[in-house]
């Protein structure tokens, strides 16, 4: 199976509460919180599409879209 390739991260800023779970538990350190405590993607090129951020986000605020 080919490695999934990132298309984009979908972030719902209205739903994100800035708990930092995705930032802290991302194995590749792709995400950060901005000055408003909302998650932002700072290193998309490092994303391996493991979806751990999506699976662990308690607020359904981040989604990883991969290329078909």
């Amino acid at each position: 199976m080919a490695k999934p390739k990132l298309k984009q991260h979908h972030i719902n800023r209205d739903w994100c509460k800035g708990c930092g779970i995705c930032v802290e538990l991302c194995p590749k350190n792709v995400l950060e919180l901005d000055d408003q405590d909302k998650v932002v993607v700072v290193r998309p090129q490092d994303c391996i599409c493991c979806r751990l951020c999506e699976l662990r986000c308690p607020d359904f605020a981040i989604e990883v879209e991969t290329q078909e």
Partner: protein
Amino acid sequence: MAVKDYLRERFFPHLWCPGCGHGEVLGGLIRAIENLGLSKNEIVMVSGIGCSSRITGYVDFHTMHTIHGRALAFATGVKLARPELKIIVPMGDGDALAIGGNHFIHAARRNVDMTAIVMNNRIYGMTGGQFSPLSGSNISASTAPYRTIDKSFDVVELSKAAGATFVARATSYHAQQMTEVIEKAILHKGFSVVEVLTQCPTYFGRKNKIGDAPEMIKWFKDHTTPIGSKAKQEHPELIERGIFVQQEGPEYCEEYQKIVERAMKGRS
């Protein structure tokens, strides 16, 4: 369908605190239902009172938000009336085993076909951080400023002893395993219990100085181990996770139908 198709999006963002594990359990539950390909119309979700019980408001199934500790009693009624539906009962630790302790053991004993999900954050969050029967000893809570004395229940051992035919434990760190276990619990014919260890950063984490939500999630990684692992032999204090019991037994609704037929003596 996508995860969001199962949500009542008009109620989002949800009311749970930042980093609360209940949102993760909701995600795991919905992914399990999505993987099983169940339709929204064949699921009934029944909950009681507490932070965790607010979960029924956010899902687009048939839902009932009932009284404290009595969700399993309402769910038993729904199942007996409409045995073709899948019943899921999400509960908090206090709702399931303190206020609803009696309902819990008797639902397990009867082996009614439904899935109880005990979201165990070891504290009463909604009412301000009082200790629960799952807090355990030496825990700081708003009602235990000098720490608790009580030992906690072991949900797995209690469910086994009460007669549940499917018993499992998962954590909010192990999100994929949580989804797999919930899938199996929903498919199981009989009373299934899934204990999910979740974090309450607002009360349990803060009062016991475990740290913020990410720190609490990592605690589950460091303090749990798969059933029967070598690590458990070396470190007996680790909490085991996985499926502890999966067995067949006479299911209550089916047995009840037999009684109906016997009483009617074929006249119906």
